[in-house]
Structure formats: C-alpha cells, structure tokens
C-alpha cells in the first residue's frame, strides 16, 4: 500500500508541470487565507495580552481594592492598621490630576513603593522577562539622585505625545508650567500604561500633597468563598471592591476584536472558497490520470491517501508561509490598530513577541479543517468518477431547499434575538443572517435570470444566450458567488455603520460645538474681563468641569448654560416634558447615554453626586443626551452647581455677534500675549481634527473590507477558470457559428456583471440589516450607546459600482485568456 501511495504521489508530483497555474492558484489562495487569519490572530492575541498586562502582568492576581465606603480618601492610619494586622499584600495608591502647560490634564499615580517592595515573592509570577524597565527611584535620596534614578515612569507612546506638545523636555522632565518642571522621567514600553504618570507615593505627596490615599490594592489570590480576614478587619468606612478590570476591558474591546476576527475569518473562508474552486479544477484535470492509475491496479485507497497527503503537505507549507506573511502584515498594521484602540477605548497595546509555533498550530488547524471542507466536494466528485463506469450525471437541483434553509436560519435569528441579549448572540445573529443570505442567493439567482431572459428581444440572440448561459454559470460557480455576496453584504453593512456613525458624530459635534472658538484657561475671570472690554461683540460663556463621583465611580461633570442656543445645541435622546426649567433651577441634570445605560438610570430618577470637595448634591435626571465616542460617563449640570470647581481649568465658549470675522486672530494674539498658558481652539479646527481622528479610527476595518472584496473578486476570477472546462462546448459552438472573440469576451463580462449586479441587489438589504444589527445590538451591548442608521443612496451606489468594477477587472484577465485560445482549439472539442 505504501508503495502504491508513493507511486501515486510521484505521478501527482510529475503532473504539477502540467497544472502550474491551478497549483499556484491553490497555493496563493491558501497563503492569502492563512496570512489574513494569522495577522488578525496576532493583532487580537497581542492586544488581549496587552489588556491582561494592563491588569496584572507579574502579579498572580489583583482582583480587589479597598475604597472608602463613601466618597473621599483613605487615611494613613487606616492603611497602617490594616498592614499591622497582617495584610502585607496591601498597596496604597494615591492619584492626582494636574493641569499642565497647555491645559492638558496629567494623571499622576503614586504607588507605595515600599509596600510593593515588601510583596511576598509568591505573589509575583516567575517570568520576569521585563528586565528592561528602569528603576524609578523611591523618593529617598533626592540629594543623591543619579541620572538613572527616575522619579516618574511613562509609556513611550505617551512620551511621544507629551514631547510633541513640548510638555516633555529633551532631558525627560515634565513641564507642569512655564516655571516648573519635574523629573527625571523614565520612558518605558509598557502595555496598558496609557496616559498615566507613575511615581512613588512619597514623590506624589511631596509634589502635589494629595488629601489622602485614593485606594488600596489587594495583591495576591483571594478566597472568594468565605469572608476573608481582611473583610472582617475592614472598618465600616472602608469597603472591599472586586475589580473586574480585565473582564471590563475585554468586554469593552470585545466587539472590536470580534469584528476584526470575523473579518479575518471571513477572508479565510473566502480564500477557502477559492481553494475549493481551484481544487475542483485540479481534481477534474486529474480524473483521466487517476482513472488510468485505477486501470493499472492502484487501489482507490492509495489514490485517496496520496491526495490527502498532498493536501496536508500543502496545508503545512502554505500555513507556514501564510503565518510568516501574516506576522509581517500585523506589524505593518500595528500602528493603525494601536491608534484605533487608543482612540476607541483609551487603552494602549503592545505588539510584542508571541509564539510563532502557537500561531502556526492555530492556523495549520484552520487550514487543515478548511482544506478538508474545501476538498470534500471535489473528492466526492472524484469518487463518483473513479467508481462509476457510466458518465456522471449532475444531480437535479432543488432550489426550493435553499429558500427553506434561508427562512429557517432567519427564524433562528429571530428566536435568538428575542431570547438572549449578549454580544456573542448578536454576532451569532450576524453570522446566521449572512449564511441565510447565501442561501437566498442560491435560490434567487437562477430565478432572477429566468425573469430577465423573456425581456431580452429575440433580435439579440447572443445576449439572450449570454443571459441563459449565465444561469448555468450561476449553478456552476455558486460557491464563488456566495463568497462575493458575503463580501458585498459585509461591505455594505460596515460602510453604512461607519457612515452612520460618522454622520451622527459630525451632526452631534457640530451641534454641540456651537461657539466660534473656545479658550481653555486657569484665568477664566481675567480672560472674560479682557474679552468684554476689548471685544464687546463677543459673548462668552464660562464652562466648568470636574470629576465627580456616583456610587464610587468617577463621573465627568460639566457645567452647561441653559440659554436658547445651548438648549438647541444639546442632542437629546429622550427628556422629560420641560427639562430646561428644572435644569436651570439646578434641580435637574442631563446625563449621557453611556452613563444611563451602564448604571441603568431612568429619566426622572433622582441621583446623588459627590463632588471632589466631598460635597454632595441630589438632582433629577431630566434628559439623556447622545455623546458618541465618549467612553466615560458624563453629566451636564447647571452652572451654579459647580461654580467653584475644586481644581482645574475652565473653558470659555466665545460667540461672535459681529459681522467682521477678523476678530479671532486679534483675540488670539491678545490672549496668547497676556495669558501664555491659555489655549485657544477654533471650532472649525476642532471639528476637522475630530473627524480626522474618527476616520483614522476606522482605517483598519475599511482596509479589511477592501481586502475581503478583492479576495471575493479573486474567487470569482478563479471560478471562471474552473468552469472554463465546462464552458468549452458552448464556446466551441458559439465560435463555430462565427461569433468574434471580442464579442465573446464582452458577453462573458456581461454575464458576470449581470450576475454580480443581482448579487449586489440581494446583498444590499442584507447589508442594511447587518448595519442595523451592528448599531442597535453590538454597539449598545459593547458601549452602551447607539445612533440612528442613515442609509445614503450615494454610499450604496459607490459601493456597488466599486464592487462591480473590482469584479470586472478581476474577471477580465481570465476571460480574455479564454478567447485568446485559437478558435480551432475550441472547435476541435466538438469532435470529442
């Protein structure tokens, strides 16, 4: 048997010379699929590892923290008592937000360096691969400080940002204002560090003198089942809170990664369609050769074994190349992905080393599974060829079964939709909707063509034949057309979603930023005085901001004027009957959608906020407003409620009442001269910058969309080559009748364009449904906000035209290749 397998393999190897193109197609498709999948896996894996590092990379576990039961601070005495009671796994952390030179807020995090030095080593993981981190100095020997003793630690990306803003000097000191710089700062590559400046708690106290300890981390494993000694020791004014940090971050970014993974998988699946087509072609070509082998007495098992060995070898080789390529693609994409994640979720990730072999194992497994599935159909067909002495008749197609499958899947979607609310179920629905769409394509495509045929005048027999033949092609290339449908539908879905999001953001931001310019300054009163005396036609509104607290969670508090212009500027999702009356009396607040959904707050509900100065106020929720893209909970309060913010800058909104537009440069000049720390931003600039950031955010998904479309077109092109073998009788006849080659080419292109047009027509409603699902299911579940779905016909037309263009170009080459065959070659076929 082994000898037979060896012989078959040898024959197959020899046959490669005759099947170079088909083999290349298989290899290319597999490599593309593996590369796409592995790049997505690398991005997701490294990002997820970054999140877990964001949590606790070297500590076995930090699941809990101690917080004040009410708002406020933890005293040193509380901390010391807890440690003296044997809780040596507690680490005090104090935080401080400081406004720097350009009114940028710097977040400092002071950690009890000595407590962490005391951590028992059993709490630390053994893998200390991060030996590159410089030591930040405990704030001990200030007089003895050496250049290597850094007082602060920041992430390398944040350092770049601060450097660009001139907030980080060349000798790595942080410029807090024009007089004061602090440092030195160690710049490290640390996943999850984000825009945080970490230092010893002593340094934080020396520098900023905070009011106390913000929270105490509990390092190490925790007994979840029984109340721990720590819980029993906690005084009533302190509470132990479980940190669901990693899970939170996972949830927050899950949709991004699921989206990315889905796109990668989609690309892989589409590639497997290409493989299927190419394999089909390969096997068909081999049938005479394999039949001869059978006639020579080679057992059928040996033939199958040899083909399986060949497939596995291809999978092993293509996966290796694909993984290597995929890693390079991931590295190339990493800046965009990092930017996207930073913009969307305010987390930074590191593309670090990862296990090549792990990745290879995953991709190889996917390739083997994909290849097995792709090979199943051609092998089945081969089986029929090799075991039957009669010509194999095509099975009768029952198209109604596709409709039944489609309806069934849509019903399942409805059941899931009404029975389960989770991101996973949402993505399951999306997947099922796409598959049901494929079934609908299989059902509808022949029918649509049948509808067209009678319309075509009898005077154009070639065109009539072409459409009729298209029906045959649709049956032969159904898999490739399904792949194309998936690509178009997901493209429509993603594009509509992104466009809706963009439009909603644009409308919202334009509406919200209704002033002509904004000044961010610590000297609000003086700036207002200057403006009122020198620019009498400019109206000013001072906006206060601070971080408040609701049930232990930080909330952005922003003052909001209640004049008519501002009332119109606030885009409300829902509100009580007369929200502004209650709001202006400082009895009501507006909260953003994120806050409302995450805390399950309802309109009319009364809630208690705690300000930074520990004062509380009770207010009624009078409205819920859209706040797209803001990952944080926010509330707009009446100006009188936070008249004296605890700390920080104030924003002055400037409205120009005059006709002359030259006021702004002059105003900028005067303010920057007299208040060098003030920052003036023109609304137009701000809008432009915001939308640029927005567009950058979706670069990756858009890129993947295009790649998927290209792969789908490639699949179609390859299918054209596959069915070329079956087309020869028709083509021979047509050519024998004297139809010129160019006309045949035109007819072929017409066939494919028509088929793809139908597919696009079917894909559009499915794409719209997908975008609705993404906006109203996935987005709400992941981010607690949604936005209206906007269907712009322009977008759809552009998308369809570009899809058709891609198909046209992709099909052009193989179609042209077939007509370049001399007519005699085709006509010879008629002679058998």
């Amino acid at each position, binding site marked *: 048997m082994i000898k037979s397998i060896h012989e078959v393999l040898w024959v197959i190897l020899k046959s490669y010379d005759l099947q170079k193109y088909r083999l290349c197609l298989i290899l290319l498709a597999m490599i593309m699929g593996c590369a796409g999948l592995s790049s997505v896996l690398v991005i997701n894996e490294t990002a997820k590892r970054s999140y877990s*590092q*964001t*949590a*606790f*990379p*070297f*500590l076995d576990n*930090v699941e809990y923290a101690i917080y004040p039961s009410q708002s406020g601070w933890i005293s*040193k005495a509380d*901390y*010391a*008592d807890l*440690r*003296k*009671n*044997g809780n040596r796994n507690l680490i005090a*952390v104090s935080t401080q937000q400081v406004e720097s030179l350009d009114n940028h807020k710097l977040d400092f*995090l002071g*950690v009890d360096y*000595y*407590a*962490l*030095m*005391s*951590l*028992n080593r*059993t*709490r*630390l993981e053994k893998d200390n691969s991060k*030996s590159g*981190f*410089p*030591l*930040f100095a405990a*704030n*001990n*020997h*200030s007089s*003895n400080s050496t250049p290597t003793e850094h007082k602060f*630690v920041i992430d390398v990306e944040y350092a770049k940002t601060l450097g660009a803003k001139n907030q980080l000097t060349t000798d790595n000191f942080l410029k807090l204002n024009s007089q004061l710089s602090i440092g030195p700062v160690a710049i490290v590559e*640390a*996943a*999850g560090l*984000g825009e*945080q400046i970490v230092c010893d708690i*002593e340094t934080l*106290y*020396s520098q900023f*003198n905070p009011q106390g300890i913000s929270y105490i*981390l509990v*390092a190490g494993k925790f007994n979840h089942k029984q109340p721990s000694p720590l819980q029993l020791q906690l005084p009533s004014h302190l509470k132990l809170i479980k*940190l*669901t*940090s*990693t899970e*939170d971050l996972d949830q927050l970014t899950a949709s991004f990664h699921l989206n990315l993974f889905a796109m990668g998988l989609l690309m892989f699946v589409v590639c497997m369609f290409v493989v299927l087509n190419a394999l089909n072609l390969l096997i068909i070509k081999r049938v005479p050769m394999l039949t001869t082998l059978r006639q020579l007495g080679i057992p059928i098992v040996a033939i199958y074994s040899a083909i399986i060995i060949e497939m596995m070898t291809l999978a092993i080789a293509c996966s290796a190349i694909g993984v290597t390529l995929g890693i390079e693609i991931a590295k190339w994409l990493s800046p965009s992905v990092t930017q996207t994640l930073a913009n969307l979720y*305010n987390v930074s990730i590191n593309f670090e080393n990862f296990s090549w072999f792990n990745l290879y194992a995953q991709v190889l497994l996917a390739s083997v599974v994909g290849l097995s599935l792709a090979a199943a159909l051609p092998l089945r067909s081969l089986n029929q060829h090799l075991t039957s002495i009669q010509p194999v008749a095509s099975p009768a197609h029952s198209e109604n079964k596709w409709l039944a499958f489609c309806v069934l899947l849509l019903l399942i979607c409805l059941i899931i939709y009404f029975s389960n609310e989770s991101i996973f179920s949402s993505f399951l629905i999306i997947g099922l909707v796409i598959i049901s769409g494929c079934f609908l394509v299989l059902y509808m495509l022949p029918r649509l063509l049948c509808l067209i045929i009678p319309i075509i005048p009898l005077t154009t027999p070639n065109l009539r034949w072409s459409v009729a033949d298209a029906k045959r092609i649709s049956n032969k290339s159904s898999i490739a057309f399904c792949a194309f449908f998936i690509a178009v539908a997901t493209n429509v879905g993603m594009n509509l979603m992104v466009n809706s999001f963009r439009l909603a953001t644009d409308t919202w931001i334009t509406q919200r930023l209704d002033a002509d310019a904004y000044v961010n300054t610590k000297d609000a009163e003086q700036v207002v005085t200057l403006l009122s005396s020198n620019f009498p036609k400019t109206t000013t509104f001072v906006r206060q901001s601070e971080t408040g607290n609701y049930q232990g969670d*930080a909330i952005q508090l922003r003052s909001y004027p209640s004049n008519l212009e501002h009332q119109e500027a606030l885009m409300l999702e829902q509100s009580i009957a007369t929200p502004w009356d209650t709001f202006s009396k400082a009895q009501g607040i507006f909260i953003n959608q994120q806050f409302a959904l995450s805390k399950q707050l309802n309109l009319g509900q009364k809630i208690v906020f705690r300000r930074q100065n520990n004062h509380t106020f009770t207010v009624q929720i009078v409205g819920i407003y859209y706040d797209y893209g803001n*990952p944080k*909970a926010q509330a707009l309060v009446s100006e009188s409620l936070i008249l004296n913010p605890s700390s920080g800058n104030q924003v002055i909104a400037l409205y120009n009442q005059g006709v002359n537009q030259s006021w702004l440069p002059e105003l900028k000049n005067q303010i920057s001269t007299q208040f060098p720390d003030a920052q003036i931003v023109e609304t137009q600039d701000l809008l432009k910058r915001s939308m640029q950031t927005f567009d950058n955010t979706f670069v990756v998904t858009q890129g993947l969309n295009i790649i998927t479309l290209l792969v789908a077109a490639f699949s179609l092109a390859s299918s054209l080559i596959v069915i070329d073998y079956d087309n020869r009788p028709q083509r021979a006849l047509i050519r024998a009748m004297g139809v010129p080659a160019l006309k045949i080419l035109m007819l072929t292109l017409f066939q494919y364009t028509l088929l793809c047009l139908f597919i696009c027509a079917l894909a559009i409603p499915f794409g719209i449904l997908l975008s609705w699902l993404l906006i109203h299911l996935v987005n709400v579940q992941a981010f607690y906000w949604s936005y209206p779905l906007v269907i712009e016909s322009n977008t759809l037309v552009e998308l369809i035209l570009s899809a058709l263009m891609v198909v046209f170009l992709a099909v052009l080459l193989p179609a042209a290749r077939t007509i370049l065959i001399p007519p005699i070659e085709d006509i010879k076929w008629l002679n058998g």
Partner: protein
Amino acid sequence: MAQWLRLVKISALIISMLSTIVMLSACSEPANSLKSNSSTGMYGGLLDQENFSSAKATEQTPITFPQDHLSHPEFAIEWWYLTANLFDKQGNQYPLQWTLFRFSGGGNQSNWSNGQLYMSHGKLSSYKQDWFEEIFARGGVGNAGVSLAAESGHFEAYLDNWIWRSLSTELFPATLNFTLNEQVKLSLNMRATGPYVLNGNKGYSIKLANGQHASMYYSQPFINISGTIERLGETIDVSGKGWFDHEWSAGLSDQKTQGWDWFSIHFDDGRKLMLYQVRHRELGNSWFGSLISPQGDKTHLTKNDIQGSIDGYSKVDSVQIPLNWSLSVPQQQIHIRVSPFKQNQYNPGVFPYYEGAIRVEGSHKGIGFMELTGY
C-alpha cells in the same frame, strides 16, 4: 467606572513592573550586586551616608536605658538585631534572625512620611529548609517604627505585623511575633537573664582603624527564648538562647570598606564572645570584640587580642564565602574553630549577605551566629 478601574489596573501594572525590578535587583546575580555595591560602599552606600545624620557617635554621650532602646532618628543608620538558636523537644535546631533596620531618608519629609525608612529581615532555618523574608516601610505612615506604645507606654518595635512588644519600657521581657513567606508563624517569649553589655568603650564602638567611623553599640547576650513555630498546621514548641544587638551610627563604613565578619558565640561554660572584623581596602583588616563573663562582665578586645584566619571558602549562591574560621583570643586561652550549621544560610535580600548559625569547637565548645558581608 471604567476610568477608575483602568487607573487601578494600570497602577497594578506599574506595581508589578516595579516589583519585578525589585525582584530583579534582589534575585539576579546577588554576588555581582554586592560586588558592584562595593564601588559605592556597603549596602549600596546606605551605610556611608553621614550627610543624612545630624548627630555623630561620641565617647562623651553615654548610653542610657531605657531611652536608648528607642529610635535615634538623628543618626543615619540604626538596627535592632536578634539572633537565636532554638531547639525543639527532639533536639532539632532552628536558627532564627529578626532585624529591624532604620535608615534616614535624607531629610525628605512630606505628609506621607517622616523621612525615615525601615527594612526588616526575618529568617528561620531548619537543617533542610530556610524561610527568609524582607519587608520595607516608611516611617510616619504608621506601620513601622520603634517607640513606646501609645496605649501602654511599653517598648514596641514593628514593621507591619512583625512586632516586638515589651512588657515595659525595657526591651525584656517581651514577645516577638512575625510570619515568613505566609508559611511560617513565629510567636516567641523573650526574657533577659543578664545585664546589657556596652561594646567598645562604654558603647562607643570604633569601626574603622583610622577612627573615622564609629557607632553606639550595646548587646544583650543573655536571652532565654521560648515559643512556638507554626508551619503547615503543625505547632512546634521551641526554646533556646538569643543574642540581641542595638547599634546606631552616622555612618559605619566608607566607600573603601569591603565588608565585615561578625561572630556572636555562646560558650558552653556560660561565657559569651563577640568578634568583629572590618575589611578595608586601604586600612587593612581590623578586629575588635567583647568577651563577656557569665555574670555579664565585659572584656574589651582589640585587634591585638584577636587572631582570626579563614580555614576554607565555600560556594554559596554562586559566591565564594569563608564559612570556616579559626579564631583565637590567646590571652584568654580561647582557640576555636567555627563552622556553619549548614552551608547555605545566605539571605537573598535587596542587599544579600550571609547570616547563619555556627558550631564552635576547639578549646571551647558552643554555638552562635555569624554574619559575613561584602563577599
């Protein structure tokens, strides 16, 4: 919600990063770290910091009890040092060390700390195992200090839950409780059976041959200890003899100090011997010590009275350390050989050193402890 969670996560990240750094500095190549320290003096230069002292040890300042049991924050360096050889009922030996170090932080005070830094070392050995732990804290936070307890007015030295608590303003009788590596819990009762011994000249102890560095140094070598060791749910009753040192100084060494060798010995005849050798690159090696009678009478020993030689080096934790010594005090007819209770008694702290029990043989028999630094 997400914001503060993120803060917590990130802080934990940094904590872990720093933990790793500390671990790395503590664990990786301890020998090298000590060797490199030698360029900046002993213990990374911590013992050289006269700049951080507003006072200096002098002969004119007598040691007075119980005041001088307490902390001397005006001095840069101070330690309370207990070593003991404990035995269970089966005769198994459990050498023990508890030390509380205080360092002046260079006058850097804030609302967080008073500028004092505390480090404590705890260690228990058996013939097969060692449990060593090193913990740190700042003074002024409330979890570390040496003071009279606010409620009782009794002497108390503590860092987190490692607490020496006396029954009076005196050091003894007292209890000492501490845990090691979350595995071993020690509860000891300590009672002094003899007087304190003022080393050097009435407690003024010159450290370098040129007289540039000195400390105030007294010992309590007559300590009876009893108590329990709890480990893996098992409680072992132990008892034995302990030795306590309290020393404070503006600076014990300079950058050319290579290290020191310290021996505390309980002879079977009831006498106690403390020997101390400083190794200095320029000044050479110099010995001093105290021979204490069973009644507590001290004989001050100078370098002329002591002969010490190394009998052999052993490799411990990749470092060649002289674990076998021949020590003589000829005038007192003391000619002894010192060997370790077991070879590896290395303390792998931020500043690693050898601290372990010894066996004494020769003209006199006994047990004790030795501390070998700078190797």
